[in-house]
């Protein structure tokens, strides 16, 4: 099967004044469609940088990265935006819902930047909110929702454009363990429905939900294990 994400010898160097710091030192990674993977690593391991590269928020300094068969290296900013819009749904640690928009409007946000915005986008959004049990709250502002509810709304937003890949960055970092379990179960459910899910975390309990764990240390993948 063609991998959804394919990295070959990906390196990322950041310039800090005169110093060049190589954060990723040759990553080889293939994630197949339908996988549920966790990227684990400690602070400073390079897992965030790796996530940014997978999510097309940044481009590698060298190496190859193919997302859905498309070479990311050398793409212009606008092309990266388009790639993110079409293929990737982001879930963040701090939810990042827009405070002045309703829950429903937040879920609809990715459709605003889609050229072929569908007429039934709103129906689709409501359907997603129903799926996560937020239908009754869709007209609320995010600040009236609990943390878990906000994260569920954020997951709906990530799913809105029907991307192949859900990329979750410490999705439970601000939630208590019970709510965290809810969110992880929701991600698992999305995975069962065919989404590729990649979770970036430092928490083994969270990583345990994934079927595959990729450990990163000092910019290289040190260990891989699959259930």
């Amino acid at each position, binding site marked *: 099967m063609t991998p959804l994400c394919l990295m070959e010898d990906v390196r990322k160097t950041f310039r800090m004044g005169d110093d060049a710091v190589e954060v990723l030192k040759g990553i080889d990674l293939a994630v197949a469609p339908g996988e549920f993977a966790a990227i684990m*690593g*400690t*602070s*400073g*391991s*390079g*897992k*965030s*940088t790796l*996530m*940014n590269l997978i*999510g097309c*928020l*940044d481009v590698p300094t060298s190496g190859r990265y193919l997302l859905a068969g498309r070479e990311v290296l050398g793409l212009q*900013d*606008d092309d990266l*935006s*388009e790639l*993110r*819009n*079409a293929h990737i749904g*982001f879930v*963040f*640690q*701090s939810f*990042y819902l*827009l*405070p*002045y*928009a309703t829950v429903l*409007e937040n879920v*609809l*946000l*990715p459709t*605003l*930047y*889609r050229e072929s915005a569908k007429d039934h986008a709103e129906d689709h959004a409501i359907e997603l909110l129903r799926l996560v049990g937020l239908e009754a709250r869709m007209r609320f502002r995010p600040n009236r929702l609990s943390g878990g509810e906000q994260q569920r709304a954020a997951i709906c*937003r990530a799913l809105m*454009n029907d991307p192949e890949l859900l990329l979750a*960055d*410490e999705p439970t*970092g601000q939630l208590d363990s019970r709510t965290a379990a809810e969110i992880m179960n929701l991600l698992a459910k999305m995975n069962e429905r065919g989404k590729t899910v990649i979770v*970036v975390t*430092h928490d083994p309990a969270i990583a345990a939900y994934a079927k595959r764990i990729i450990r990163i240390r000092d910019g290289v993948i040190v260990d891989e294990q699959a259930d």
Partner: protein
Amino acid sequence: MKRTLLNLKIALGSLGNFKLRTALAVLGVFFGTLSLVVVGNLSDSLALKTEQEIANLGNNLIIVVSGQIHRYGPNTPLISRATNLTLGDAEAIAISLPAAARVSPSGFKAFPVRRGNTVLKAIAVNGVTPDFSEVRNFEIAEGSPITEEDDRLQRKVALIGRTTAEKLFGEENPVGKTILIWRVPCQIIGVMAEKGADIAGNDQDNQLFIPLKTFLRNFVNLENVNIIYVQAASVEAIDPLRGEIEALLRVRHGIRKDMKDDFSVVDLKEVTALKSQAMDLISVLGRIAAAASFLIGALGILSIMILIVNERRVEIGIRRAVGSRKRDIILQFLMESSFISVSGGAIGMAAGLLMSLAIARVLGYPSSISVRGLLTAFAASVASGILAGIYPSLKATTIHPVDIIRSKG
């Protein structure tokens, strides 16, 4: 469309955090559009008024006044009080210059006017010839005009302006009644048609007209007149006739080559040009005030937009993450900044319309809505918003999703 509405809603929510600053910025644009609209409308009103004035004063009219008009001095009375023009001058013009179709000399002075217990302290009393109503376009609404005979026999008869008539008679018909002008009882033989204010704002309906000879003998005891109205035979004749009148009067007044005229010959273009100088000044000042207001408004918007962009770093990062391109972000913030300015502009335009209508009414000018003024004001408010939004929106594009995703890794 949906995107615009949602963005607008988010922008409004965010502006709510900076109410005072937003109000100040909106106020700047408000005053800018207000002044532009008012200046535009009043200039148009003045142009209309000038046209009306020219038609009102009389066709192909040349005015000879005694004394010199100082064209550029402040508070210059257009018509000098000196009286060194004579009836003889008027006759000479009428007889020797064929291009002068009609010649109507006139004297005027303010006198108290009384009827019963009603006393009006100073009403302009004009001594006029029968030609007057023709030359100056003064029509008689009721009664009969001043005739050659009235003038020759120095009859004590008067035509009364509408305003004066109302003051003295109220609803009563003044024709046939007698009033006391200064100490001379005069019979009112007619009421003038309404004429409105002249370009200087003087009510032309608040005056009296009596035969010129009556005026000269019984009121001022002089042979001299203040002004000679000359109607040229045609528009083309105006300019040459002016020269001829000047030459003739210089000879009659014995003015040598090196001496200045003791009279002035003006045509209506000059009269209206003089009167509109004040308006031009107001125009210029209004535009300067408008420019300053727009500048203040734009700077206000600039500072708010910088604050807003900073406040919404996360929002921008999220928008970028879910696929907005840099140009979407630029467009969004330009729209927000122009929304602020256009809302100020819209209120300013509405207030400017009302204000200019009110001013026109007070000055007795015809009210006019200058489409060009409105469009300029609108364009200026949009432009100031967009210009003020350029820097903040470009700054917004430097915010990258990576900056806001602070996972510890």
